[in-house]
Each structure stands twice: as structure tokens, then as C-alpha cells.
């Protein structure tokens, strides 16, 4: 049923540290690898070796530049995938009942056996987190690796989303954001984690940690501070200054 659950027992989600992410795209690749071979239809590629390659991805890393009033700009690498919103518009718009939010852990999923590929859920998502697969005709989105996190056939340290397991810089964290005592909730509290586009009222579960601000050195290390030159050199120094 595409009505949303009133509450969910857990709020499983990701915390993404924009201060730490180096934009290496490893999570993009590991996500594609895991999810093309497991849950649901594969993530197809079209014209992969041709002039206009394109395909389905569940996680993409954008790079932005933020320019403060004064000083240097900051480059921020910005991974983006489904935020498993509490008030997920993508679920309620779905006419077939394919899109749903799980009561037990809050994960938003698509049951591909029911999806008719109308694309309305993708229209309703503010974050561009859903992609209609061009070959299989069904809606694809992040499953929070629902087939890893509860999977007793894989070693315990692997029972986290593939992107979290892969990130070489430790910029991705996974846990229960509904439990204020969880590590991820404490991290969000300590680092002032924030929501994306809060004005749209989707109440995302995933949180982002802001990049730390750059130092603002009072003087550049490269400007000469003073000159002790005397005689001929003092004259040269002055003459050159005037040029």
C-alpha cells in the first residue's frame, strides 16, 4: 500500500560527511556493482562503449564550489542517493503500490513486480534519487542495500551498505537515525548535520555533515614582509618597486 506508515520502528539511513569526502567515486562504482547483480533488475548501461554512454545509477557524486563573502572558494564533493524520507512523496504518488516505505526500518523500496514505469515517483522526488531503467522499464533507487544489512551469509563487517563499506575516506556512516543514542545520531548532533531542501517538507532520514570552514590566514606567506637591503641593493630594491 502506498500510504506511508505513521511511524517506523527504526530510521535506518546514511550520514554523509562533506568535510571528508574526496570525490573519488568509489561509492558510485561499488553501489553499481552490488546493485546490478542483486536486488531486482540490473542497472543497465546503454551505448556503454559508444559516443553517448548513459545508464542507471543509484548513487552519484556531484562536485560544487561554495564561494564565501571573503577568501578562497571551497570545493565540496557531494554524494547523493535516496534519503529515505519520512514524508516520502514518491511513495504516496505511486498508483500501483510498487513504491513503499517499510514499517520496520523506514527503508523506501520499489517492488518491481508491480511497477508500471510511469515515472511519477521520480517527478515527485526533489533530490533526483530515482531513475527509470531504460532497458528494464522499472524504477530503480537506493535500497540501502537491504540485501546486505540483514544478510547472515556474509561476514558481519560487510553487513552495511556497499557504499559505506567501500568509502576509503570514511565519509559515509550507516545506522539508526531514529535512536538518539546511536553513533550516527551522536555524530549528527556533534557536527550539526543538516537536511537537503528542508523547505519541501520531505523530512529526509539521511543527513549531511557540513564541510569545516577554511582557515583565513591574515597575511599571505608570499608577500615580502620587510627588506634589510643597504647601499646599492637598497637603491635597486626601490627602483624595482617603482617599475
Amino acid at each position: 500500500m502506498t500510504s506511508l506508515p505513521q511511524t517506523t520502528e527504526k530510521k535506518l539511513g546514511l550520514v554523509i560527511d562533506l568535510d571528508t569526502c574526496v570525490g573519488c567515486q568509489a561509492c558510485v562504482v561499488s553501489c553499481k556493482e552490488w546493485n546490478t547483480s542483486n536486488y531486482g533488475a540490473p542497472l543497465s548501461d546503454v551505448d556503454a562503449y559508444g559516443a553517448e554512454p548513459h545508464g542507471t545509477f543509484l548513487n552519484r557524486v556531484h562536485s560544487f564550489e561554495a564561494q564565501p563573502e571573503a577568501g578562497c572558494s571551497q570545493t565540496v564533493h557531494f554524494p547523493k542517493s535516496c534519503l529515505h524520507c519520512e514524508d516520502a512523496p514518491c511513495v504516496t504518488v505511486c498508483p500501483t503500490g510498487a513504491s513503499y516505505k517499510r514499517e520496520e526500518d523506514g527503508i523506501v523500496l520499489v517492488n518491481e513486480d508491480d511497477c508500471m514505469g510511469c515515472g511519477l515517483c521520480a517527478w515527485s522526488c526533489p533530490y533526483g534519487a530515482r531513475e527509470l531503467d531504460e532497458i528494464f522499464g522499472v524504477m530503480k533507487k537506493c535500497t540501502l542495500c537491504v540485501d546486505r544489512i540483514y544478510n547472515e551469509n556474509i561476514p558481519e563487517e560487510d553487513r552495511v551498505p556497499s557504499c559505506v563499506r567501500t568509502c576509503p575516506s570514511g565519509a559515509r556512516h550507516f545506522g539508526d537515525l531514529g535512536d538518539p543514542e546511536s553513533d550516527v545520531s551522536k555524530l549528527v548532533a556533534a557536527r550539526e548535520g543538516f537536511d537537503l531542501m528542508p523547505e519541501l517538507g520531505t523530512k529526509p532520514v539521511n543527513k549531511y555533515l557540513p564541510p569545516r570552514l577554511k582557515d583565513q590566514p591574515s597575511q599571505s606567506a608570499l608577500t615580502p614582509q620587510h627588506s634589510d637591503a643597504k647601499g646599492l641593493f637598497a637603491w635597486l630594491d626601490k627602483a624595482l618597486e617603482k617599475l
Partner: protein
Amino acid sequence: MHPAPSVIAFTTLSGLGFGLLAFLGLGLPPVTGWVAFVFFALAYALAVGGLLASVAHLANPKNAIKAFSQWRSSWLSREGIAAVAALLVMAVFAIALIFFDVRLRLLGLLGAALCLTTVFTTSMIYTQLKTVPRWNMWTTPPVFLLHCLGGGALLAGQPRLAAVLLALLGAMMIWAWSEGDSKGRAGSTMETATGLGRIGKVRLLEPPHSGENYLLKEMAYQVGRKHALKLRILTISLGIVLPVALMLLVPVTHFTAIVAILAHLIGVFAGRWLFFAEAEHVQALYYGR
């Protein structure tokens, strides 16, 4: 938003078809027998043709039947149910009228109400989307309903009514354009999308992929927006002014009616194309568009 021809065809043709059906249900014009048959055939061809075009838009149509299941939450599901109910009720009404010369007045009223409900649910599919501020406005349902009623009156041969409804439609469209223009993306910016406004002004340094993808094709459509003004003028002059003038100023003949209907149709297609092409989706902000 990508102006998919199938969706443009669906929303305009089925809107006209349901408009005509609604008038027939109200007994305008009061036709029976073979004349009624021709009117109903036209209305059904438009409404059903539009619905089929919308099924062609689906990537996985074999599951389309499941779209009737989620009426509690989904406007698209409600639209499907309302459309089928309207077509069935009007079919009974039409059969009685054509073959038995019996006018089931109450059934006709019910059918007309269902036709308008269908068009209203269609409009709500767009109106509900907060992600597309230009659609998320109170003007969207009246524009869709006036499209349906104005075009329907034109097809039903009701010149005065058509002129009034089309004039109202024109006014409503101009209102929606100006409100949509000033609304922009309703307060969402690259800064709120990324949360990096706390640092300063944000720009895209590198997109996540070098080629196209579904998101860009579907929700970051930019082609032809620069022709918006020309298309608006075309929409109003062909879709509204010319048919209204023909209906009010010259004696209505078959010929003038056909010219008015064709002009209206071209204008409406242009307007509906703009409805999609001009609508900006907030997710395009992540691509700096």
C-alpha cells in the same frame, strides 16, 4: 520538464473528449439516434485515444492494471478509476440514447460529473508536485477544467458558452503564466539543495557524469524555453482569440466551427507543450540548471 508527445496528446485529447462527453451527458446538444452516435463516437475516440496515448508513455505497461489499486493515496490511481467509471456510465447513457431513444437524465448528470472528476484528478497529478513549482499552484485545476469545458463546448456546438468558457480559460492561463514566472523555484536554490549556503554562493564545479541520463532528459529540459513568449502568443491567439471571435462575430456554420476547432486544437497543443517545457524541476538545481 520533458514535453513527451504522448503525454501532451493524452492530456489535451482526453480533456477535449471528456469535455464533449460531459456536455452530451447534460443534453447539449439534445441529439438522438445517428447524430448522437457520431457525437459519441468522436467523444470516445478523443477520450480513449488520449488514454491509450498515456499507456504508451509507460515503460512497463503490463502492470498498468495495478494502477487502479492505490486510490487512497495516489491521484494517478484516482484518475484511472474516474476515467473508467466515466466511460462506462456514459456508454450506458449513449446506448440508451442512440438505440432506444431514451434519455436517462440522472445517469447523464452522473456521467458528466464523472467526466469533470476525471479531468480534475488529471490536473491534481500535476498540482500535487511541490518539486515543480510552476505546476504546484491553485491555477492548475481551473486551467485543466476550463480546457475541458471550453473545448467540449466548442465540439458540442455551443457557440456562446464556448466563447465565455474559452475567454475564461485565456484569462486563467495568462494569470498562471505570470504567477509561475514570478514564483520561479519557490525558494529552492542551489544553496538550499546542497546545504552549502552556510558557506556562500554555490555553483556546480563538476557534474557527476559527462553524458545524459534519465534525470536530465526527463527533468532538466531546456530546449525552446527561449521561445516561450512566441508560443504564449500563439496559444492565446489561435487557442482562444480566433475561436472566440468566430463564435461571436460570424454566423456559425460547419466550416467556421471546424476552423475554430482546429485553431483551438493547435493553440492548445502549443500551450500544453509549454506547460511541460517551461516547468522547472527543483532536482535540476543539483546540475546547476
